[in-house]
Structure formats: C-alpha cells, structure tokens
C-alpha cells in the first residue's frame, strides 16, 4: 500500500516551515505551521480564523429570514446546499409544506452547484499536484453552470435563491433546455477528464496509497462527505437523513474503500456522474404548479431545538437553531463539513512527506471561510 516509507531515519534535527496564510496550496487564508524533519512532516499545527466573520452571532440579532443570505457565504462554492439547510430547518420547525415543483428545482440547482464545486476542486487539486491544464478544462465547464445559475438567480456564486417555503421565483425561460444541453455535453467531457487525468501514471504515483484517512479516524473526528465515502462507508446525508425529494430519486452513493487521496478523488468524480443522473431524473419528473408554499408573513419558530442537515459538496452541513419563540433566533449553530474534515489533518499529516501532505490537503477539498465562518 505505502509507496514511500513514512518514517525518516535521518538525524533528529527539525526546522519549522511556515505554510500560508497566503499560499495557493491552502486554497485561501489558512496557515499551517509545519515542523519538518528533512522532507518529512513531524508535526503540523493548523492556525485558522483569518476570515472569521462570526456568522453565528449575526444569526442571533436579525429576524429568521434575514439571516438567509449569510448562509450562502459560508462555503461560497456550495451556496445552494447551505441555503437549503437553513430554509429546511425553519420549514421543519414551523411545519411549512414546500410545493413539489420547488423541491425538484431545489434538487436540480443543488446538484448543478455540486458539479460546479467539484469542478473547482478538480482543477485546483491537480494544480496543487503541478498540472496546470486541468484547471482550464474544469473552468470551461464550470462557466456553463455558472451562466445557467446566473440567469436563474442573478448570482454567480453566492446564490440566495431558496426561500422559506419555496423559491424566490420560478424557472426562467430556457432553463430546462440549457440544463439538458449541459448534461448532454458534460457526460463526454467527464469521460475525457478521466482519460486525461485519472489514469495518468504521474498523477497516480502522487495520490495512490498517499494520505490514508481510514473510517475510524473519520469517525473520531467527525469527517464526512467524500472523506468518509472515500474510506469505504456509504454515508451520505441524502440517504441517511433523507430530505427534499432525494428518497424518490434513483442514484448511487459513490464509495471507495481505499481511504487514500485517490479514493477521495474517485468518489468525487463518481459523484459528478451521479449528480448528472439526479438532474436528468428531476428534469423528467419536474411537476407543474406553484413554487411557493403558504408561509406566515412573520416567521415565528416554536420553542425548542431543531436541526437540519444537507449533503453539501464537502460533506454534512447542519444548521442547529435554538428558538425561544421570539422572532429572532436564540442561537444559530452552523456545523460545517470542512471544520471536521480539516481537524484530522494534524494527525493524518504526521510522517508524510511535504509534497504528499500538500496532495492530501488538496484531496480534503478545503474552503477556508467554511472553517472560519
């Protein structure tokens, strides 16, 4: 399994290497203090918080619905799923029914968002490993998704399209045709990506057997998403805690038991394929009807704790709200996937070579504002 020896035998002389906060491999402003023994990482200490914005406090001092735009700015690459979790928790607490058309459109847009997020990861990950070209290919396709979603929502990244009880507005004209065309075009592109990269021997040497993160470590640290699925456990919030119309849809949870960087890579590639399947099914079944349910003018949640989780591109995103029956939240807690995913880095990076550490960090698919909130 291991291609490289993980323990060096050299003299016990270490030095501190500072990675970040301004470093392209950290995908944002994240600092890692590495204690190096030659090329090997002895100790990695994460220094986070450079883009901390205290979203949780903001949730406590404004009406329920006005916090919604904030949730799209936590993980700027999967805003759809994040706003979904927040409107979902309010709908769950108040017992608001969402019309089926709105639910289907939510799933379509969420899955498009997932593909665009995975494309950014794909390009950036390979950039970390030294491949410049894939990024250009990835952004080419991502641009099409962004155009489709921009026409629909008016935003290219930080969408705020979902509303409590439904959607801001119905689909624009030509949306269904555009998405169908995208799906048709993207399938062969995905195949080409695999031919270009997945079987490339240089790439495989960099990721196969590198950065092992097994299921037990994921469990102890609460790592979710492609991390846990790349460790062989088919945990997907869309299946484990079914929400929206996912139970009616036919898709597979991508799993790979190898638990290395390659496994996480394969899981994400497969997820894009599955997202396309989901989108196609939703387009076929898209019902007519209103996109907004009956929602009281002034939102008031009953007393108590409510949770709602969605499967974001990086794993489980969960909103936990505590209500005291007032028009503002008593407490909003945002459980973000990257927080749990990164917290195991300190342990998992120990003994890796620096370049492999970077490869592993790339396979975690970090979005720093998601950790710092």
């Amino acid at each position, binding site marked *: 399994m291991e291609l490289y020896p993980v323990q060096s035998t050299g003299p016990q002389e270490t030095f501190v290497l500072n990675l970040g906060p301004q470093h392209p491999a950290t995908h944002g402003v994240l600092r890692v203090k590495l204690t190096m023994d030659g090329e090997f990482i002895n100790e990695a200490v994460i220094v*986070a918080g450079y883009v*901390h914005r205290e979203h949780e406090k903001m949730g406590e001092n404004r009406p329920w619905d006005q916090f919604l735009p904030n949730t799209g700015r936590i993980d700027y690459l999967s805003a759809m799923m994040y706003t979904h979790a927040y409107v979902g928790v309010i709908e769950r607490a108040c017992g608001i029914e969402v019309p089926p058309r709105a639910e289907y459109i939510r799933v379509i847009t969420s899955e498009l968002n997932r593909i665009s997020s995975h494309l950014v990861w794909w390009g950036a990950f390979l950039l970390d490993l030294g491949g410049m070209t894939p990024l250009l290919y990835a952004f080419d396709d991502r641009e099409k998704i962004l155009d489709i979603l921009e026409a629909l929502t008016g935003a290219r990244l930080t969408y705020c399209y979902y509303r409590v009880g439904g959607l801001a507005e119905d689909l624009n004209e030509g949306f269904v045709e555009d998405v169908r065309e995208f799906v048709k075009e993207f399938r062969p592109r995905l195949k080409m990506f695999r031919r270009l990269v997945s079987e490339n021997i240089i790439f495989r040497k960099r990721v196969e057997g590198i950065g092992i993160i097994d299921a037990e470590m994921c469990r102890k640290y*609460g790592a979710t998403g492609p991390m846990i699925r790349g460790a062989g456990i088919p945990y997907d919030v869309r299946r484990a*805690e079914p929400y929206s119309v996912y139970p009616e849809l036919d898709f597979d949870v991508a799993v790979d038991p190898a638990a290395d960087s390659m496994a996480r890579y394969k899981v994400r590639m497969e997820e894009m394929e599955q997202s396309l399947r989901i989108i196609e099914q939703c387009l076929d079944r898209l019902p007519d009807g209103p996109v907004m349910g009956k929602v009281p003018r002034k939102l008031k949640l009953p*007393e*108590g704790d409510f949770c709602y*989780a969605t499967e974001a591109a990086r794993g489980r995103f969960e909103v936990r709200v505590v209500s005291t029956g007032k028009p503002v939240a008593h407490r909003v*807690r945002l459980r973000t996937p990257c927080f749990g995913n990164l*917290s195991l880095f300190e342990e998992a990076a120990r003994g890796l070579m620096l370049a492999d550490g970077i490869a592993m960090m790339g396979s975690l698919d970090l979005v720093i504002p998601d950790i710092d909130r």
Partner: protein
Amino acid sequence: MSRCPDHLFERFQELFPTMDTENPAPPEASAGAENEADTAEPPPPPPPPPPCRKTEFAKVGYDLDAIVEPHQIEEAAKLLDDEGFAIDMITAVDWPDAEQFELVYDFMHFEAGTRVCVRTRIPRDRPEIATLSFIFPGANWHERETAEFFGIQFTGHPNPIHLLLPDDFEGYPLRKDFKPPSDPLLKP
C-alpha cells in the same frame, strides 16, 4: 416514529439512573426569581422535559435527546463511542435568565444514520466541564471554539488556545451580554 434503536435508549436509561429522579435543569430558584420580579411577570415555568426521550426525526432532526448531569458527560461519550457513533458537533447555548450554559453534544451514526443529542447544563459563574478530546479527538477543535466564544473551560483540554479568534481578543462574543469593542481607531 423515532428512528432511535431501543437498545441504545435502554443503555442510556440504565447508565443514568439518577436522571429519572432528579430534575435535570433546576434554575437557581432564589436568585433568578428576585431578578425577574422587578422586570416583568414571571412566565409560568414549563414542565421539565424527561431527561432521556426519543424524538421524532422528521420534526426536530435528531432521534434521541438525553439530558445528563455535567459529570456524566464523559460516560455518555464513552457509551456512544462504544456504540460506533461519530462526533458531529459540540456547542453551547447561553441562558442568562437561568444563569446557566447549556452544552450540546451531537453525535451521528455513519451506518444507521441515527443522531443523538446529549445536553447538560453548567452554572454560568463556574463554567467548567471535562473535555472529550481523549475519547473523540475531533472534540478538540469544537471545544476550543466553544471555549473562546463562551468562556467555558474544558478541564484537561490538551491545547486550550484560541482557534478562530485572534490570540489577544478579549471577551466572549457568543455570550448574550457581550458588547463588541468599539472601533480602536475611534478611541480617544
């Protein structure tokens, strides 16, 4: 219907026999009443929730809600670790009227999809609770975050430094009585 398996519910009830008899969250009756008396009419006290109950997932988003004593939290975590649960998150809720912090520990199960929520309350003037970092290493970061935002001390924590806030930040932002510092540039 709750998705909580029966054996887990029974294990929780067996492990904490005191939970059934003791009132889980008694507010400081004397001190709290005096403060409230001159502000407004005291609201009728809600009936205390049962300490360990199955909940309906579709309504609240978790399957088991267990209220434990602060000293039982490690025991509860060990039980859940034993059952194969993963740590989901740790957080706190400030209840200034009751003079308490509520600590909320969420756990999830990767195979069964079950979610368990364990809560405990600690006094606001002595916010201390044992760390879970040695049972779930992932608790380390969650506790650091809770500590810096609420000023709660996790005794035995291996690395009790700020995680997200700057090292020299003063105050605990998520406490209800937190006043944000004014702009340093505007200070006289």
